[in-house]
């Protein structure tokens, strides 16, 4: 899993590339989210456009990122969720927790709107 970070209107966008499946990915994400909070970056979009698939361990990584951001007073939202990932979100009812967007502009605006 490769993570590239960029910023748009004060919102951090993490572009993921590869498969989100546990192993070393968990530690990479943990460090990334803690660093973001340390630097006062509390509004994060995880862009899943480049993610081929995810398993439940990878879902746990996203949940961990979400709870880290929420406990730090921020939020994490998902962008470009494929049908395959969306079906995991639905069956586990995590679609009730994660806000998902198909457009980057809309995802960024959702933070600016409050």
């Amino acid at each position, binding site marked *: 899993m490769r993570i590239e970070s960029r910023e748009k209107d004060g919102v951090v966008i993490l572009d993921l590339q590869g498969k989100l499946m546990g192993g070393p990915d968990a530690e990479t994400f943990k460090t990334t989210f803690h660093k973001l909070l340390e630097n006062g970056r509390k509004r994060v979009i995880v862009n899943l456009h480049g993610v*081929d698939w995810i*398993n439940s361990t990878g879902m746990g990584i996203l949940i*961990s990122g979400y709870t880290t951001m929420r406990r730090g007073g921020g939020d994490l939202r998902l962008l470009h969720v494929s049908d395959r990932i969306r079906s*995991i979100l639905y*069956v*586990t009812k995590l679609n009730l927790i994660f806000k998902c967007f198909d457009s980057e502009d809309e995802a960024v605006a959702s933070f600016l709107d409050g």
Partner: protein
Amino acid sequence: MAGTVVLEFPSEYKFLNIVDLVCNDVVQNLCENRETANEIAISVIEAVTNAIEHGNRECCDENVRISFTCKEDRFCVEVADCGKGFDYQCYLQNIPDPANVYHLRGRGIYIMKSMMDSLEFEMVPGHGMKVRLEKVLKPKAAGEVAKN
């Protein structure tokens, strides 16, 4: 698809991608329903992840064996590890509330049970845990199979 496709590989996460590629290729030739194909692929990845993580404890010297078979109207997958097994009954009977965001783990069996038509576990003494997954398929129209 005639016969059985078998893969065997060491317990390393990097092999999950090969499993996914093979599974998708096999399923797409049998089933035109994208949702069904996704449910099978997701469940297979969960079963193999469990075998690597909980069965073989990520020990590269221990292999995972997976077989794909099409039996009449259903697609059957068996995933076998070399581990000591785990209390799957506990997971089947006490599935954590999936809506509880604080649960980072424990969704794999829930996902497989929700997405497949049949899910069975068997502890094979001296060999490890075997998981059987089945999904009923709507057959492709005759022309569709030929096209793929």
